Every structure is written in structure tokens, then in C-alpha cells.
């Protein structure tokens, strides 16, 4: 089941299947990589912002990272079975 990161239910493990690197700006792509985002990495969506569920806070590796929804839209994930 392929979802976009922003659609993933809270606190559910998922594996990053694809990232639309060209769809986000180069500076944002660089930061995403620096935070450890990559194809094949396990992520979780942990929290969402108070207005319009934006931004989103995700777990990647041992880090918690805040992103805007616009960037989360570019990240496709495969949800693990609950």
C-alpha cells in the first residue's frame, strides 16, 4: 500500500519507497538528505501542526524532524502492517 508521507496514520512505521527529489527545491532536497531521508529508510509520522495538519513532525532514524506538508507530499512510503 503506497501512501504519501502526509497521508500516513500517526505513529505507524513505513518505509520510504520514493522521493520526488526534483519536485522539491535543491536546498530542501539537501536538508532532507542531511536529516537522513532516503529511499529504503523507515519513517513514522508523529505529530501534525495545529492548523491544516501542517507542518508534520516525523521520526527518521533516531531524529525527529519537522517538515511542511508540501515537502511531505513528495515522499512516498509503504506502510508496514499494523
Amino acid at each position, binding site marked *: 500500500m503506497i501512501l504519501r508521507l502526509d497521508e500516513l496514520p500517526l505513529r505507524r512505521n513505513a518505509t520510504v519507497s520514493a522521493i520526488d527529489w526534483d519536485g522539491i527545491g535543491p536546498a530542501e532536497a539537501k*536538508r532532507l538528505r542531511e536529516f537522513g531521508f532516503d529511499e529504503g529508510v523507515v519513517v513514522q509520522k508523529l505529530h501534525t501542526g495545529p*492548523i491544516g495538519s*501542517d507542518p508534520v513532525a516525523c521520526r527518521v532514524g533516531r531524529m525527529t524532524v*519537522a517538515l511542511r506538508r508540501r515537502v511531505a507530499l513528495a515522499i512516498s512510503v509503504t506502510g508496514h502492517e499494523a
Partner: protein
Amino acid sequence: MNPLPLVALVGNPNAGKSALFNALTGARQKVGNYPGVTVERKSGRFSLDDGRPVELVDLPGTYSLDPGSPDEAVTRDVVTGHQAGERPPAAIVIVVDAGNLDNHLRFALQLVALGLPTVMALNMVDMAERDGLTIDAEMLARELGIPVVPTVAVRRRGLDELRAALGKAVGSNAAPVAPEVAEAAEHSSYTALQRRARAIAAAATTRPEVTRDAAERIDRVLLHPVAGLAILLALLFVMFQAVFAWSEAPIGWIEDGFSVIQGAATDALPAGLLRSLVVDGLIAGVGSVVVFLPQILILFLFILVLEASGYMVRAAFLMDKLMAGVGLSGRAFIPLLSSFACAIPGIMATRTIDDPKDRLTTILIAPLMTCSARLPVYAVIIGAFIPARDMGYGIGLQGLVLFGLYIAGILGAMAAAFILRRTVTRGAAGTFMMELPRYQWPDPRDILIGLAQRAWIFLRRAGTLILAASLLLWLLLSFPQAPEGRSQVEYSAAGRIASVLEPVVRPIGFNHEIALAIIPAMAAREVAVAALGTVYSIESDDETVLEQTVTERLSGRWPLPTALAFLMWFVFAPQCLSTIAVIRRETNSWRWPLFALGYLFVLAYIAAGATFWTATALGLG
């Protein structure tokens, strides 16, 4: 004299680098700037285990040697020996968070591959243990080919061992770089480095089945869409409450102190020009500014604690969407909050905003946040013209007007950002990407060092710029000396300048006295109170008495619409030379400070005018 060997402290953001820097150097720190860029250079001294002194420099935190901002470029240039005005480091200390090795080792591998004498501080091992992780430091050392010292900077653990390891590294030739490290770094692709980093981290870390995560559970409350916002608002309320409530006593002591000094100077000097210069000009001028020190320190106490605990990034997270509405990012929240104390540190704090357009917009609107220097002006005018009527629920009309002035500043700033982002600072929408660090108890010593640095910056400003402005104001008001029977204020240079300015400000309800007061207030807003005091020829030296009498003298003298217009003027007008100077420095051009000066004056003129005309039309005059 040979300069001391330089040791550079490098690492990812949130690795505890600054805490380690404070723990090693204590209060012996120097804060400066790298030439040509607005990047702070923080350095200090300490002695190695064998007694050799070294200079330690705290480099800006970064995730890689591929810079995304001026800060990060400085870090790269210092460790590679290419930074102008900096000697190549004799050794580097890589600071990593023991609980986040996956990520931090990638940058560490890049640094190790530089081949400098290197020591790793495996920091925050206590927090990693709390989360159930065990880390094999010896195995890490073998894999990386450098000494690895477990530390807990905030508890000052592992410092002696670190000094000993550095003692061996400084002056030695670096050990050859391990072939696996060199290979991974050579490809320098994130993927290759990241894989190697993950492999080493996995090998050196023993983790339990389920790792505990304290931050995640706290965040369920603090980032909750409803509860989280309510807590943030409550915190801000307590903070502003404290700024006023806790500062009362210390402000009294400072005022008493300055009265004593004024008394002593009055006794020591013969009556005449010199005594007037020292007592009315210099001591009163500087004293009227130094009284804000307690409020500024209380506000910074809150900001430093919130920052060190890890909460500030959460506040930015909660505010991001709101800020995005006017074209800013959640990152702008922290500088704007600091600007309530003073726009100068606020504008300096915009350095953490990566996007240049976002940063510039934040700099341009920071002066609209009601800084503490406006308070005495507000206090005097509100006291003189707004009746102390009880509006019920324990809310007074005067307090309500004060609150309204704060809100006017915030709304003005938001509107300005909205328009600026669509005109002069137009560009691609910025973004918001931040690491949410783990929560930790702030180290009181780190907070004290931060407060001392703020206090020093503020007092230095009072001792130089404000002193000069007070002197100039006194000169303009005292010369040329009026002949017998003529008013000194009217006859003086300042009075004549005010007569020229008067026709310009007459349409927005300002009279001659106000025209006179807003000229010296250009240097610093709070001078307006002293200027009005002098204009209405009050012979009192004591600050509190001065304010009371200004208030008493004013009530009834101005029509209400004029008083309201005067208040609105101070909400928007760029009445602070230091702010303009700091915008000049931070944007590295004259264009933006002049633009800020222009747009803020136009805004102030319109806002004051609109207030005056509306109030007059409503028959409040």
C-alpha cells in the same frame, strides 16, 4: 608572540557543542565576528592536561561540509584552513550525540577524512542510556581511527579525559586515515557516507527491543493541536507578566542608585554648565536607559531557558502555519519574540533563518515588535491621558490601551510582512525544516553565561551610543543660550529645528513640544520622556519624580487625539539608531536600513494621522 594553538569544536546542530564549549572554557569567552560575513566567532581559552594553553573556537553547527548558509560555509572554511582571518586548527574536536549516531557519524566521517589531529566527544551518553542504548566507545574509536571520549557536557563529565586526549593530539601528526573512511569520504555522496555511518553506528550500539523515547511522549502534549497551543499562549502570558512583575524591585534599585550618583555629582560640581551637563545630560540620559536592564534580562532568561530545553523549536513548529500565512516561516517566531525585549538581539537571531528573503523580511518587521524602550513613553502618555477606569473583571482601561498598543505592533508587523513578501522581498516561498531536539534540563551555568553576554552588550550600548545621544541632546537644548526673558527651549538649536519640523507634523496633531521631543528620540525612544521633561522645564533630577511630573504636566495640555496619535507614532516610528545600525550590519548594505527607515516613518505618519483624524471626528478632542 606566537598565537595559541587553535582547537576547533565541530559537529551537528543539537549535539551539545555549545554546552561542551561552555564546560571547557567557563566564562573566559570572547564573542566577535568573522571578517566580511555576519557569522559570530565564539572563542575561549583552556589548558590541556599537560598545562599547555589552547584557544578553543566554537564553530556553527552543520550537517555536512557542503554548506547551505554563510554559517555553514565558515565551518567548512575553518576546518579546511581557508577561512580569512583564522589560522588553520591544530586539532579538531568532533562532537556527536551518542543517541543519534546514525546521523551524526556521517558528518564525522567527512571530518575524519580531512586528516587533521582529531578527537571525538561522544556527548550526551546519559541521554542515550536513558533511552536504553549502550554504546561501545572503543569499537567506535577502532572503526574511525581516532580517540573517542564519552562525555556529558552539561554535567561536566568526561572533560578531564577529553583534555588528556587533546593533549596527545595537539602538536602531533594525525594518524593516517583508515582506508574504509577515506574510501567512503572520497565518493562523498551522501548515500555512501550515510551507509558507512549506519553500519558503524549499528555495530557500536546495543539497543533493546523497544527503545524508550521520552521526547515523543512529551510532544504528544506540547505539540497537541489544542493543548499545545494553549500551553504556548500560557507560557507567553507568564513571560510577559514576569517581565513587568519581577522587574519592579530591581528597577527601583537602579533608579535609587542613579539618584545617589546624581546627588553626589551635584554636590561635587559647582552650579553651572558643567554640573548641568553631567547631572542632567549624562547621568540622567544613561540612567533612563539602564533601568530597562532588569526587564531585558528577565525576557532573555525565559528565551534562553526555552531555547536550551528544546522547547523553542516546538513553539516554532506550532506557529509555522500562521507565519506562513504572511509569507514567513516558523523560524521567524524566535527572533520576533526576542524583539519584544529589544530588536537588536532579535535581528541578530535571524541568522538562523536559511532563506535570504525570509530573513530579510523578518529583519524589516522586527522593529515593529514593541520593545521595552517604548514602555516608558507609553507609561507616561497613558498615565497622563487615559483615565484609570475599571472595566470590570479586574481589567483597567489603561492596561487595555497598553495591550492594544502591543497588538497594533504585531498586526502592523504581520501586514507589513504580507505586503513586503509580495513586493520588495518577493520570491519563492521559503520552507520550514527543523530538527526537533530531545528535551533536556538547561544547565544554570550556560544560562548565566548567556545572560551575562546579553547584559554586557546592552550596557556597552548604554555607555556609548546612548551616552553620545544624551550629550548631543543636552548640547542642542542648551545652546545658543537664550537672553534674559526668552525661553531657553524655544531659543535653543533644538527649538529652532522643531519649528522647521512643526509644519510637517502639524496635520497629524503634533504640536511644537512633540516636534521637539521626537528629534532626540531618533537616537533612542526612551529619550522622548527626558526630552518632554526638559521641554516642559522641570527642574527635577530624580527619574521617578521626573516621570510623575511629566505625566502631571502633560495631562490636560494636549487634546486626547494628539496623545493617541503620539502613542501610535511610537508603535511604528523607527526611533532607534542602534536598530538601524544593526540592520546595516546584518544586511551588509545601506539599502535595507534606509528602506526600513523610510517605510517605518511613512507607516508611523499614516497611523498617527489616521488615529488623530478618527479621534477628532469621534469628538474625543
